[in-house]
């Protein structure tokens, strides 16, 4: 009889420990999901992984143009599978002074036979420069829709912050254009193209 009591007690203790251990399991699961937003924030804050902002920055009027220094900015662009566009920078590189606002553009042409929605994702190399490369206006701030055969100039206005570390002489800006159609009908695309024009 005492043996039986001991057994139920043991099974109670065992169950309690098992539930405690499943807290670790649950925490591990939650952690893996929390990593996704956390990673995003860390990358943007510290410029890790060349992740550039897709949001506009207001120009800081207090900063001076550093006429004594030249920085070469190289522009590259590519389209990802699933988007039938050709996409190129108009000028592949330019020399700018830090603090100077510069305007340049890319051209995109839709070679497909249907309207397509594109999303441009910017990245900056070297990663270290990501935090110092600021865009005032950019086509990457919103989705772009091109009708079949349509040709479009896509402007970008940027400046390089004057406190860019001295050992950085060249900054490369790349755009990867993705197909953003995912599940949109042609009618919906036409609607989007219309609203973009207005």
């Amino acid at each position, binding site marked *: 009889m005492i043996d039986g009591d001991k057994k139920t007690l*043991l099974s109670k203790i065992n169950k309690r420990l098992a539930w405690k251990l499943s807290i670790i399991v649950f925490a591990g699961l939650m952690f893996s999901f929390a990593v996704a937003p956390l*990673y995003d924030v860390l990358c943007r804050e510290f410029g890790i992984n060349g992740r550039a902002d897709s949001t506009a920055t207001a120009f800081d009027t207090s900063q001076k143009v550093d006429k004594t220094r030249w920085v070469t900015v190289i522009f590259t662009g590519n389209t990802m599978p699933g988007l039938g566009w050709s996409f190129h920078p108009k000028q592949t590189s330019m020399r700018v002074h830090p603090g100077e606002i510069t305007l340049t553009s890319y051209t995109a042409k839709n070679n497909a036979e249907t309207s397509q929605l594109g999303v441009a994702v910017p990245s900056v190399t070297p990663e270290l420069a990501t935090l110092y490369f600021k865009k005032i206006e950019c086509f990457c701030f919103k989705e772009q829709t091109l009708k079949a055969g349509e040709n479009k100039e896509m402007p970008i206005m940027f400046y390089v912050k004057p406190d860019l570390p001295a050992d950085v002489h060249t900054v490369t800006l790349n755009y990867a254009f993705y197909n953003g159609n995912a599940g949109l009908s042609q009618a919906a695309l036409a609607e989007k193209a219309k609203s973009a024009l207005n």
Partner: protein
Amino acid sequence: MSTTTAAHHDDHGHESHGHPTGLMRWVKSTNHKDIGTMYLWFSFAMFMFAGALAMGIRAELFQPGLQFVQPDVFNQLTTLHGLIMIFGAIMPAFVGFANWQVPLMIGAPDMAFPRLNNMSFWLLIPAAILLLASFFVPGGAASGGWTMYPPLSVQGGMSVDMSIFALHILGVSSIVGSINIITTIFNMRAPGMTLMKMPMFVWTWLITAYLLIAAMPVLAGALTMLITDRHFGTTFFNAAGGGDPVLFQHVFWFFGHPEVYIMILPAFGILSTIIPTFARKPLFGYASMVYATAAIAVLSFVVWAHHMFTTGMPVAGQLFFMYSTMLISVPTGVKVFNWLATMWKGSMTFETPMLFSVAVVFLFTIGGLTGLVCAILPVDIQLQDTYYVVAHFHYVLFSGAAMSIMGGVYYWLPKWTGHMYDEKLGKWHFWTTTIAFNVTFFPMHFTGLAGMPRRIPDYSQQFAEFNMISSVGAFALGISQLLFLYVVIKCIRGGTKATNQVWEGAHGLEWTVASPAPFHTFETPPQVK
């Protein structure tokens, strides 16, 4: 009918009446020994299957050019070889050992949750079926590598879903099994067995089980995100929607590196059991072994990004992961030197389990050293995804994990079956395995240093000789394992009667019970002084 020595416990009802027979004995089994046996057989079947896939890989790589399989099939072979060997062969084998040995070593009558234990095992079967069946769905099995990096794993066909689902099931099985093992170890030790008196194998499994319950859910999370990216329009790993494929690598390796130690810590436990037995000396530095194991486990969570040095990390990050990785060689070194010190001036004899253990200490150290080479940042950038890495992880996983499993099987086989195995054939198995293993994988260091990339079915003419040597070695290695199967079956069917202690230098509770170990043991807890 009753074979138990504790049959006088009438108040225990059916438990004291021997064991059920027939198929249902296995299907409904809640007995830790039966479940352990099933785990080990399952693991061996998966080992042979994934080994057969490797034979396909080596047949294709025997000569340059494409001879046997198309590149997509080749990629399926490498992917499934990796997945099945890791999740189907090595991990279940260690769980099998845990099932058999942990209760026997700590003097517990069974695992804490026998029914959950049954479930942990039977979950493996649908998972294995999913993985094997994935070869026959349109597009063939998953082919993006066992690491399942997006975008390939997002683009892949139905077989990727099957693999992901299989891994989810295996994950549940591992987590439930680990909770069971931890609970057993904490709550069911015989009176007098304090934590620091536990056999080393139990310690390593306790720590491994903690690694499993902390790391497997992270893999489950990553796989779930992969599934939602594939089917529900999320973009965790898709840059077009603001995600990042590199994020998957971070999450995956946050699981993946602890996983590496999940596959090696129980092997360390087996070595720490076998070496003192045949050196006839107690384990040197028991406490330092425990602390070293714990240190390895803790460090395993802060080294993950050394798998991704070439993804474009900041230099500060690369340096951190380089140094933290190198730090792991300190506790690992403690272990290796402790084994050497255990052997030092011991009265050593070289039965098959000891041969395997000594070989593991030597070969695992080679694998550890090449791991240290890979940890050096500038070198790794050169070596990433070459055959050097393949050589490295086969030295730690085959000659580290798999060969300790073989050593462990020979060591405890007499206790499990009641018969001594055929020593001569066992030694033959050892020597053919060890030699063939080195013939297979040592040349890969050279092909890797020369720049041969992994996961490619064809290669440049300059690698032809070394690849041919590797392939010949691999075929010999594959055939040697049939000898292993023969020795084990022969031992089950008969042989010299084993004594209770089996080995002259064996100490511990498991050697106090009869050989073969009765169906029920330690129903009355033994007293540990």
